[in-house]
C-alpha cells in the first residue's frame, strides 16, 4: 500500500507496546459509539439471566449479583473505532463466578449476549472464561453511567469493545456460533485487536 504523501503521524517515541495496530491513545477521554438510544434502567428492575447449556439456569437481581465475590479489572480497553484507553478500572464480578453457580454443560462452545435494548453479540466460551470477562457496574470507583452501559455491562477487555455488551441482561450458552448485532452488520466474529480483526473478511 502507498505511503501517504506528507503524512508523518504522531510522534511515536520507540513504539508503544500496549497499543494494538491501528489504534491510538484516547487519553483521559472515553468516546462512545452506539447504534441505539441509551436506555435508562432502574437497578431495582434490572436482572441478569445466565441460561442455555448450563446445569442450573440462574437469574440474578441487583442484590443477588452483588452477593457474589467482588472482582475488578485493571488494564486497557480497545474500541474498533481506533481508540484505546489505558489503565481503566472496572469493578463487578468475574463471569467465572456466574458460571460456577450455573455449571457449564460439556457441549457449550459459545455465548450469546443480549442487552435490554435487543443488542446482541457472540463470543467463543473460551473468551469469557478463565479470568477474561466480567460483569461490571463501577468504572474508576463510580457507578457506570448509562452512556457507557450502566448500570451493568459485560466487559471482555481483550477483544474490541463492541463485544463488551452494554446494558447486559442475558448470557446464553450455546453449542454453536451465531452472529450478533454488529457481526451481522459487517464486523468481525471474534474481534481480537492485536490481530486487527475489525470487519468481516479480516484474518
Amino acid at each position: 500500500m502507498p505511503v501517504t504523501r506528507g503524512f508523518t503521524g504522531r510522534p511515536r517515541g520507540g513504539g508503544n507496546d500496549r497499543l494494538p495496530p491501528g489504534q491510538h491513545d484516547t487519553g483521559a477521554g472515553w468516546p462512545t459509539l452506539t447504534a441505539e438510544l441509551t436506555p435508562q434502567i432502574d437497578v431495582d428492575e434490572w436482572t441478569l439471566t445466565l441460561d442455555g447449556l448450563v446445569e442450573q439456569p440462574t437469574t440474578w437481581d441487583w442484590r443477588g449479583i452483588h452477593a457474589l465475590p467482588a472482582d475488578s479489572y485493571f488494564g486497557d480497553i480497545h474500541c474498533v473505532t481506533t481508540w484505546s484507553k489505558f489503565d481503566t478500572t472496572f469493578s463487578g464480578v468475574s463471569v467465572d463466578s456466574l458460571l460456577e453457580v450455573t455449571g457449564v454443560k460439556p457441549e457449550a462452545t459459545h455465548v450469546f449476549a443480549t442487552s435490554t435494548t435487543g443488542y446482541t453479540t457472540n463470543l467463543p466460551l473460551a473468551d469469557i472464561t478463565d479470568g477474561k470477562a466480567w460483569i461490571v457496574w463501577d468504572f474508576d470507583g463510580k457507578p457506570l453511567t448509562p452512556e457507557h452501559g450502566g448500570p451493568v455491562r459485560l466487559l471482555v477487555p481483550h477483544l474490541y469493545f463492541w463485544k463488551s455488551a452494554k446494558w447486559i441482561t442475558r448470557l446464553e450458552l450455546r453449542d454453536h456460533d451465531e452472529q450478533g448485532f454488529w457481526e451481522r452488520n459487517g464486523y468481525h466474529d471474534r474481534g481480537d485487536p492485536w490481530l486487527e480483526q475489525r470487519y468481516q473478511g479480516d484474518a
Partner: protein
Amino acid sequence: MTQIVPTPVASSWTTAVVREVERLGQDFVKLRLEVADRTPHVPGQHYVVRLRAPDGYTAQRSYSIASDPDDPLVELMVECLPRGEVSSFLHEVVEVGDVLEARGPIGRWFVWGGTTPALCVAGGSGVVPFVSMLRYARRTGTEPLLRIAASAQTRERLPYADELEAYGAFIALTRENHLQTDGSERVAAHIYPEEIVPLAEGIERAYVCGSVGFVSFVGRILGEAGVRSDTVRVEQFGPTS
C-alpha cells in the same frame, strides 16, 4: 421500487485518488474520491480512510459518505477535530492527486434504502449520512418518504446548509437567529419538541446522528413525540462529558 440491500462489507483495502478538495472555513473539508474496485454503497454507510507514514505507521478513521450511490465519486465531509491526527491531515495537507487507502462501504444498520417513511435528525456534522440519503431520495423520487431536521450552533457549523434548505429540511440553530424558508425568523434555540411532532407523524423509523449529548436530547424529544425507541437508529460519536 425495490429496497437496496447493503452488500457485506468490502473485505479488503483499496486505494482512493483525491479528485476534489474543498476547504469550508475552519471546520470542514470536503473530499471527493475516485475509489478503485468500488463496491456500491447504501445511503448511511461509511468509509474508513487510512494514512500511512514512510516508516509504516498508520492511522485510520471512519467517515460517513455524503454522495449518492450513483455519483461516480465518493464524497466525504470531514470535520476537523482539535488534535485530530487524520482530520488535521485531511484539512491541512491533502491535495488533488494524492492517493489514500480506503475501505468500504461499511455498516449495514444505519442505512436507508428508500422504502421506509423516515425522519433523520442531525447535529452538526452528523448531517453527512443524511445528505447521501436526501441525494438518493431526490434522484429516485422518494422525497416524500424522507424528512430531515438538522441542528447546529451556527449556519457555518452546518455543512450542506444550502442543500438541506433546498430539500426543505427543518433547521434549528442554537446560537444565531435563522430565517426560515417561509420568511419567518426562528430565534436561536435547540429543537423544540413541538417542532419534531409534525415531522415525526407517520414515520416508521428515525435516524439520529450527532454527539452524545445531542443524541440523548433528541431521543427524549422523539419519545415525547410518540416515536418508539426501538424504531430509532443511532449513530452517536464523540466523548462523554
